[in-house]
């Protein structure tokens, strides 16, 4: 099916709250959580998307989470993405296993990595994380303990000079050299560093 046909079919078959647009990845359906199961059933039955590829979540910071599902039609050779925005305070969705059996382990992983609940899932136990693991690692506010605990070797200045943030005296006792911009390791937010 061409993207235009898919958009037209969605316009006919799903409520107007479900927005549908086409981009370079394929067709993306933005689904409010209340219409999640209806949209998945529509994708499976009406859009012929019989191949379930993956289900995961995106941490959108202040906008909450977004659960994304990628399904594909083997006969029609078209990709469909379904995205459901969820509030940050209590994110949950009904389980997709009633429509796509393969979502079972994907939902388990999304549950342990982001803390998103899936109502009706038969066995929502942790899949990849060891027993007793605390926290949800793929959330953006999860601190990587290793990067917080180890001192970055690049924090030293060439020549063992004092780190930026302090005026330093020039050799020979002449006027001090002004402080430079503070430098930190890449991909480590402020506030993590060694205690």
């Amino acid at each position: 099916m061409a993207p235009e046909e898919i958009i037209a079919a969605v316009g006919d078959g799903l409520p107007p709250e479900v927005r549908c647009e086409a981009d370079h990845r394929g067709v993306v359906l933005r689904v409010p959580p209340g219409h999640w199961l209806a949209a998945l059933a529509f994708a499976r039955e009406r859009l012929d998307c019989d191949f379930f590829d993956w289900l995961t979540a995106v941490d959108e910071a202040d906008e909450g989470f977004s659960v994304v599902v990628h399904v594909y039609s083997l006969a029609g050779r078209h990709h469909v993405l379904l995205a459901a925005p969820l509030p940050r305070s209590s994110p949950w969705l009904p389980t997709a296993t009633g429509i796509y059996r393969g979502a079972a382990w994907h939902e388990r992983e999304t549950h342990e990595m982001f803390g998103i609940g899936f109502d009706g899932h038969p066995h929502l136990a942790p899949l990849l994380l060891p027993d007793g693991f605390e926290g949800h690692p793929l959330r953006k506010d999860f601190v990587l303990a290793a990067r917080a605990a180890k001192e970055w070797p690049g924090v030293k200045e060439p020549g063992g000079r004092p780190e930026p943030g302090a005026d330093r005296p020039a050799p020979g006792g002449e006027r001090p050299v002004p402080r430079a911009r503070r430098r930190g390791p890449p991909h480590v937010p402020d506030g993590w560093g060694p205690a």
Partner: protein
Amino acid sequence: MAAVDLPLPDVAGGPGTGPGPGVITVDAGGGCSLRVFDAGLACCGVEVAAALRRGAALATVTTGKQLNVFVVAGTVTDKLAPYVREAFLDTPLPRRVLSFGACANSGGPYWDSYCVTKGVDQFIPVDVYVPGCPPRPEALLAGLMLVLRAGE
């Protein structure tokens, strides 16, 4: 189409019924042979497989014994660590442990991950560390030679 007459996915046969580590015997010459138990956990496992399939001929060693070498090749995650330890304890004596590749040595490129064990020596005693990412198959043979020499 009807959706779901399929069962939910599950581990086949339940825990403890999967295949154990592959056992390959390497002729070290001089009457000594190494039985290599390869725990090929990730990409390094391909290099170990390449090394052991080549029918390696190591230099002549004068000891006449048979030694069991437990090779950990690949990233050890915190979830998998207890099973790696069980596989190590199942290795018959006399046994040595060879840690193959950066992930098994120290966590390697995944040292900062939330779920990677920073080196297999966190929970089993290691005799030889082979550096590399991944090490060449010839580096495994050099590491096995070091296992023999270190044991004397």
